[in-house]
């Protein structure tokens, strides 16, 4: 059920992010969400993209990448929406490794991406609580609806 995130290793040097984004752009891939985690020596770029296969092929040629399933939830764009979801997860003792969110993709909605160890468990708990999670197809459909 989960959606696919591509993570990529980036050297902590000027221009490295630009290089990665340029090659994705030139391949005609649209970025839905982006997050960059940094350490003293390197960065980890995490991406949700319109075309996972193409992104893997393009980026994988130049840098180390990894595909990871993550849980994505569409929520209403109002105060407290994220809190509701987090309450459900913490109530079920699901540990979140990292999280990032994006808004404005559609009017009045926001998306939040969770990295958890047990995807199936997190998704089932969310669905039991009436919170829908997205699939890769949803991302593709959603993108085509924008056109």
């Amino acid at each position, binding site marked *: 059920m989960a959606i696919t995130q591509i993570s990529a290793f980036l*050297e902590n040097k000027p221009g490295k992010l630009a290089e990665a984004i340029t090659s994705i752009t030139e391949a005609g891939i649209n970025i839905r969400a982006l997050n960059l985690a940094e350490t003293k020596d390197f960065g*980890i770029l995490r991406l949700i993209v319109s075309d996972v296969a193409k992104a893997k092929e393009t980026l994988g040629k130049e840098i*180390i990448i990894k595909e990871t399933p993550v849980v994505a939830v569409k929520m209403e764009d109002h105060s407290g929406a994220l809190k509701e979801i987090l309450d459900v997860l913490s109530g079920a003792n699901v540990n979140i490794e990292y999280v990032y969110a994006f808004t404005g993709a559609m009017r009045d909605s926001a998306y939040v991406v969770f990295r958890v160890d047990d995807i199936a468990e997190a998704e089932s708990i969310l669905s039991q609580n009436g919170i829908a999670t997205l699939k890769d197809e949803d991302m593709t459909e959603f993108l085509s609806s924008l056109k």
Partner: protein
Amino acid sequence: MKNYYQPEIETASRERILEIQNEKIVKQVKHVYDNVPYYRNLMEKKGLTPEDIKSVDDIKKLPFLTKDDLREAYPYGLLGTDIKNCVRIQSTSGTTGKRVVAFYTQKDIDMWEECCARAIVAAGGTDEEVCQICYGYGLFTGGPGLNGGSHKVGCLTLPMSSGNTDRQIQFMIDLNATILCCTPSYAAYIGETLAEQGYRPEDNKLKAGIFGAEPWTREMREGIEKSLGIKAYDIYGLTELSGPGVSFECEEQHGMHINEDHFYAEIIDPETGEVLPEGEKGELVFTSLDKEGFPLLRYRTKDICILSREKCSCGRTHVKMTKPLGRSDDMMIIRGVNVFPSQIEAVLLKEGFTPNYQIVVDRVNNSDTFDIYVEFSPEVFSDKIAEIQQSEHKLSSAMRSMLGIDPKIHLVAPKSIVRSEGKAVRVIDKRKLV
């Protein structure tokens, strides 16, 4: 006034030294041939019997021993006497992969300590001294060797071992230490700490220091001498032969006298193995003339240096060697510990990293920095920082247990380590020690 610990031998004529050496080598080769099957086998391969060695001139016929032999024969293969005759084991510093275990009889210990005593007396030491030893004690030869030498001279010995600088300074000041024995980098560090604590060089009673186990520069020597208000002497040695005291500096501070009545030195061409004439630069090879427990013949030290028999103003007649000017292998000495790139490579592969790495060694504020840059591999990469850091930590601790010292690990992008003409540059040593 000239000071010698054993004047009759330290200032003996060349003829007398040669006489002693010739007598000892004949006995020693026979002893090794009879007691060390590993070496007898090497001799037999060359068609040699003890009768072929009649003087030190014949040493050049003997087969070499290298660290590889020591590893192959580990632990007992080069033992020269019944184990019950041995009273001590010492071992090389922290290099698991290439650890050397050396055995000593009581006579070997006495000889070693006498060599260290010669070094202490050459540095101006008498039985009036308070000798502070902050080399490590234990398997490392630094502490035990100088400790024994200090006893032989009759100094009041402070067996401090390394570390705990505040306590070192307290003992140095309160107990009026006059001779300091440690690594040069630690001496420099003590000097800096003394200054930080408000002590002037004249506030301590030190007059001399005996510093070895790692390379140091002239500038470093001057810095130590100034900050501690002492004269700094170099000392050289290796566990394979005994430990510190194989050679030592005299008041000339220009080259180290080799204790030739115990260790016969040759300089060879590291490529061909051919013996080079005096004054030429090459690899230093030692033959232990009277060791019982671990009697190595023609041991290749891999240290590159030059021998000189020029007359020395100190009156000692024993041949002098320069400080090692480099290595004929890729060994580095970092914080006094021997490090081989091959060990680093082995750890990387074992821990699932690529063998694409670069070692950068530098000296900042008189202490060695040690960084290892390792190229990322897909196996190590994760979307979670914590996971990458975990494998980084695992690598660090594997390095620490292999090397005995802690490198700083940096994970870098694949193919980012500079390759010169296709071959990666494995070691960048910025210390400019020669």
